[in-house]
C-alpha cells in the first residue's frame, strides 16, 4: 500500500505522450495552414478562431456553471468597441487596449452576474437577453460609439510599428491568443475554481454547504466568460476592419449558444469543434448552389417547380437547422460525444 | 403472475443484470433482497421499461411476462394500465404539485371518479399527516412524508401487482411497521400481489412468502423466508448476526491502518 501515486498526473497539461504527440501534430498543422490554403479563406478562419475563443468562454458559464446566457453578443460588442475606442480615443497600444477592453467586459459580466444569483432557466435567459439588447441599443444611440454608422478600426499595431495587415498575419496573432486562452481555460477548469463552478451547476445548495460562496463564484463565472468574449470581440473588430452594432444582435448570441450545445456542453474540445463547425457551415454550407454543376440546375428546377428560385439560398439555413437537430438528437453530448465514441471505437479496434 | 425470464440490462457499456429469472405468483408477497448495487432497482426499472431511453432494446435479452402477456417491449404507460404499480427509489413525487394533486395523479388511469374520491379519503385517513398537508406542495414535505406520499400515490391505481423499491427508506420504526402492515393487509384483503425490494431484511423476511437474493446482477438464492433465516451466510451478511466477530474486527483494523 505504500506505492505512492503521482497526483500531478491528474492535472498535467498532456495526460500522456500520445496526447502530446497529437497536440504537436495539430499545432504544426495550424501554424503551417497558410501553406496549403488560399489566403482569401483566412478571413473565415479568423472568424472561426474568434468564435472558438468566445465559445470556450461561454462554455465555462453555460456548460460548467450551468448559467444560461443569451447576452453574449453584448460582451462581444463591449470587447470590440472597447478595444477600438481605447485605441482611437485614448491612443492606447493594441497590447494594452485588448486586455483592458476584456476587463471592462468582464466587469460588465460581474454586474450581470448579480441578478443571476437568484435567477435560473428562462428567467435568467430573459435577463441576459435584455442585457445584450441594451448594450447594442445604447451603442446604437450614442454617437460616441459611432452610432448606427459604425466605427473604423485602427491598424493592428503590435508595437514599434509592427503592423499586421493581411488576414494571414492576423491569423497567426489570433491563433496564438486562442491557443493560450484555450489552455488557460482547461487549466482553470481542472483546479479549484473550475470545480466550484461544476458544483454550482450540479447542486447549488450542496455547493454552499461545502463552503463555495455563490455570490463570488457565480459572478466570477460570468466575469471569466465575459473576459473571453471581450478578447474575442476585440479581435473580431480587427477581422472586420469596420463594424456597427448590427452584427452584435440576439441572433449572434443564440448562435454562440448553439455552438457550445452542438459542440458539447462542459467540454472545451466541444466548444472548439462546435464553434468551428457552426461557423464554417453558416458561412459556406450550400451557398451559391446555383453555380454548382449538375446539382445547381437540378435544385433550380425543383425550386421553380415547388418553391421559388430566388429563395434557393435559404437551403443554407434549412440544412443547418436539420444538422443541428440531428446532432442533438443522436448525441446529447454533441460533436464531442461523437468524438468520444470514435475514440472508444478505435481503442478497441479491431475487436 | 409476473414471470421474469433471463433478462439482461446494460447501462451503456456496463452490464447491470446478467440474466435474471424469477417469478411472482398471484396473491403472494415476494421479496427481492441484496446488497448495494446488486441490481434490484435496475430489475424493477427494467420491468417497468423505464430504461427505454438509455437504449431501445431494453432488456437486451430475455422476456418479461405479466399475466401471460409479454411486456418487455410495451410502453411504461401500457404496463401501468395493465395493473402494475410502482413505488420508485427516491420517492419521485411531483414537487410542485400539492399533496392532493399528487395522489390524484396516482389515479390517472382510473375512470371512476367516485371510487377515486373514496380511495383518496381512505388513504388520507390512513396517513393523517398527508391529510394535514393536503394543499402543500409535495416538494416541501419531509423525506418520510414524501415516502408515504409515494406509497399512497401508488395505491391509488388499485394495482394488481404492486412493486415497492425500499418502501421503508427513511421511515420511522413505527411507520415502517405500519407500512408493512398495510402491505400485508393489501395482500390479504384486496388480494394485491406484491414485489418488494428491501434493505430491511428482517422486516422483509417476516412478511414475505418467498424471497430472492441478488448479488452483482445475478440471483444467487431463492427460497422461503423460513429457510433463508436459518442460513448462515444470509444470517451474517443480511441479518447482521455476525458469527465470526474476528472478521469484522480485522476489517476495521485494516481500515484504520490505512487511514493513518
Amino acid at each position, binding site marked *: 500500500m505504500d506505492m505512492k501515486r503521482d497526483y500531478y498526473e491528474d492535472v498535467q497539461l498532456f495526460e500522456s505522450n500520445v496526447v502530446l504527440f497529437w497536440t504537436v501534430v495539430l499545432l504544426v498543422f495550424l501554424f503551417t495552414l497558410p501553406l496549403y490554403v*488560399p489566403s482569401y479563406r483566412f478571413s473565415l478562419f479568423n472568424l472561426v478562431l474568434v468564435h472558438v475563443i468566445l465559445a470556450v468562454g461561454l462554455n465555462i458559464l453555460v456548460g460548467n456553471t450551468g448559467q444560461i446566457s443569451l447576452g453574449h453578443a453584448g460582451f462581444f460588442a463591449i470587447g470590440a468597441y472597447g478595444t477600438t475606442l481605447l485605441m482611437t480615443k485614448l491612443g492606447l497600444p493594441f497590447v494594452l487596449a485588448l486586455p483592458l477592453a476584456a476587463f471592462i467586459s468582464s466587469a460588465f459580466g460581474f454586474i450581470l452576474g448579480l441578478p443571476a444569483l437568484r435567477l435560473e432557466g428562462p428567467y435568467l435567459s430573459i435577463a441576459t437577453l435584455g442585457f445584450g439588447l441594451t448594450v447594442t441599443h445604447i451603442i446604437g444611440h450614442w454617437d460616441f460609439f459611432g452610432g448606427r454608422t459604425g466605427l473604423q478600426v485602427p491598424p493592428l499595431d503590435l508595437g514599434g510599428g509592427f503592423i499586421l495587415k493581411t488576414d494571414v498575419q492576423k491569423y497567426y496573432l489570433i491563433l496564438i491568443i486562442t491557443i493560450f486562452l484555450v489552455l488557460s481555460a482547461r487549466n482553470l477548469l481542472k483546479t479549484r475554481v473550475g470545480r466550484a463552478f461544476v458544483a454550482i451547476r450540479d447542486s447549488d445548495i450542496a455547493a454552499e454547504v461545502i463552503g463555495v460562496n455563490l455570490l463570488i463564484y457565480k459572478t466570477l463565472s460570468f466575469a471569466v466568460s465575459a473576459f473571453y468574449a471581450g478578447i474575442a470581440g476585440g479581435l473580431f473588430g480587427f477581422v472586420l476592419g*469596420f463594424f456597427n452594432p448590427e452584427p452584435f444582435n440576439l441572433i449572434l448570441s443564440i448562435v454562440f449558444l448553439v455552438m457550445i450545445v452542438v459542440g458539447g456542453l462542459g467540454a472545451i474540445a466541444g466548444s472548439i469543434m462546435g464553434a468551428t463547425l457552426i461557423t464554417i457551415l453558416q458561412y459556406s454550407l450550400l451557398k451559391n448552389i446555383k453555380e454548382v454543376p449538375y446539382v445547381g440546375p437540378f435544385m433550380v428546377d425543383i425550386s421553380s417547380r415547388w418553391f421559388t428560385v430566388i429563395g434557393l*439560398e435559404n437551403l443554407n439555413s434549412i440544412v443547418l437547422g436539420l444538422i443541428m437537430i440531428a446532432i442533438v438528437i443522436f448525441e446529447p453530448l454533441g460533436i464531442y460525444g461523437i468524438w468520444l465514441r470514435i475514440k472508444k471505437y478505435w481503442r478497441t479496434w479491431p475487436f | 403472475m409476473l414471470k421474469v425470464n433471463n433478462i439482461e440490462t446494460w447501462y451503456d457499456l456496463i452490464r447491470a443484470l446478467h440474466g435474471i429469472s424469477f417469478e411472482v405468483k398471484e396473491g403472494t408477497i415476494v421479496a427481492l433482497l441484496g446488497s448495494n448495487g446488486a441490481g434490484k432497482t435496475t430489475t424493477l426499472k427494467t420491468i417497468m421499461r423505464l430504461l427505454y431511453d438509455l437504449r431501445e432494446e431494453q432488456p437486451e435479452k430475455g422476456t418479461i411476462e405479466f399475466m401471460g402477456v409479454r411486456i418487455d417491449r410495451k410502453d411504461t404507460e401500457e404496463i401501468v394500465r395493465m395493473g402494475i404499480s410502482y413505488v420508485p427509489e427516491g420517492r419521485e413525487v411531483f414537487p410542485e404539485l400539492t399533496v392532493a394533486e399528487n395522489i390524484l395523479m396516482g389515479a390517472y388511469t382510473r375512470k371512476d371518479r367516485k371510487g377515486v374520491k373514496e380511495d383518496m379519503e381512505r388513504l388520507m385517513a390512513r396517513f393523517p399527516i398527508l391529510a394535514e398537508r393536503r394543499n402543500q406542495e409535495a416538494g416541501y414535505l419531509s423525506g418520510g412524508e414524501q415516502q408515504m406520499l409515494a406509497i399512497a400515490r401508488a395505491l391509488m391505481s388499485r394495482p394488481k401487482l404492486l412493486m415497492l423499491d425500499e418502501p421503508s427508506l427513511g421511515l420511522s420504526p413505527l411507520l415502517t411497521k405500519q407500512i408493512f402492515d398495510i402491505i400485508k393487509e393489501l395482500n390479504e384483503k384486496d388480494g394485491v400481489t406484491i414485489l418488494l425490494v428491501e434493505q430491511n431484511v428482517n422486516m422483509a423476511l417476516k412478511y414475505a412468502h418467498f424471497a430472492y437474493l441478488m448479488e452483482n446482477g445475478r440471483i444467487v438464492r431463492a427460497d422461503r423466508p423460513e429457510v433463508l433465516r436459518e442460513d448462515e451466510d444470509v444470517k451474517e451478511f443480511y441479518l447482521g448476526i455476525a458469527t465470526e466477530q474476528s472478521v469484522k474486527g480485522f476489517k476495521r483494523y485494516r481500515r484504520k491502518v490505512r487511514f493513518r
Partner: protein
Amino acid sequence: APGFDDKEIRIAAWGPQTGPAAPWGSVARAPAVLAAMINEQGGIHGRKLKHFVRDDQYNPAQTKVVVKELVEKEGIFSFVCGTGSAGGLAVKDYLAQNKVIWVGPATSVKEYVFPVQPYLFSVYPLYEDEGSILTKYVIEKLGIKEIGVVYQNDPYGKNGLDGVRQRLDHLKMKAVAEIPVEATEKDLSSHVLKLKSAGAKAVLMWVHPTTGVVLVKTAATIGYKPQWVASNTLSDFELMNKISGGLWEGIITGAFMLPPDSDDPRVVKYREAAKKYAPEERFGVFFMAGIMFTEPLVEALKRVGKNLSTEAVLKALNSMKNFQGVGPKLTWSPDQHQGSDSIQIWKCGPGGKTILLQDWTVNELAHWKKK
C-alpha cells in the same frame, strides 16, 4: 485576376438573400437581367458580362468573407449595387487595395463619397437632399406647416432627418415632432399617438417599408389622417399599396428613377427583359434600381472600347457627364464621386399606379456641391 478576359467581364453584387433583411436582396439580383440583355446582343465589344450574386445576410462579417472569395477566387472586375452600409464600409478599402471598381452602391452613405474614394462611384442621391426637397414640396406646394418626422435610428433615417431640418432651418421653422424608430419595431401606436397629439398635418418617414405600413395602418385605426410623405425606399407602390391594404393611396414619396410601371421605352425594354430572364421576379422599384445602378458601368465599358483595363474604365467613369439611363442624371469627376443630386416626387395613385408630381428637382440648399 484582372476580372476580365477576352470572353467575359465578371461583375458581382452582394446583398442579403436570406434572413430578416432579405427583402432588400432583389437589388443584387437585378444586374443579371441587364447582363443577359447585353449578352444576347453579343456583349460589350465582344465580351460577355458575367454576374455573381452573393448572400451576406446583411452581416459585415459575411460580406467580407464573400467579397474576398469573389475577388481572389473568381476575379471580379467591378462590383455593382452592394447592399448594406456596414458591409460596404468594411470592404471598401479592401476593394480599393485590390483595384476593384465599385459602381452604384445600393445605399446612400456619405462615407462612400466624402472624401472621394478613387474606386467607388455613387449613384444614389443623398437622403439629405431628398429630405430637403420633399420638405420644400410639402410646405410650398401643399401648404402644410405642421410637419412631423419619423426616422429610423440609423444613418439612413438620420440623414433624412437632417435634410428636413436643413429645409426647415432655412425657412425658420421647426418640426412639431421628430420620432426615432427601430427597424424591428412592430407596435407603433405610441409613435402615431405622439404625432397626432403634436398636431402633425404631414408626416415624413425615413423608415423600413414594413414600419411605414404599420405606421399608416395604426394611424387608420385611430382615425388620424395626415399627409404621409416618405423616402424613395417606400416608393414601391405596387407592393406598398398591397401590403398596406390600400392605405398607401395618396402617399407622396421621393424617387430617383422612372416608375417601373412607366411607358417610357427604356423602362419597357427592361421590363420585358426581366419577364424573359427572371420570370419569378416582381419588376418593382428595388429590382429596377439594381439595373439602374449597373447602367453607368455598362456605359463606361462601352465607351472604353476593346482595350479594356481598370484604369481606362476609371477614366471613363470619372469623365461621365450628365449620363442618363432610367435614373437621375449622373456626373462624376475625379474629385466628385457623388453622381446625382436630384430626385423626382411621386404619388401613389389608385391600385398602386404611379403619379408623377414633380420631375427631377435639385436641392438648391445642398452644400456638398459647393465644396
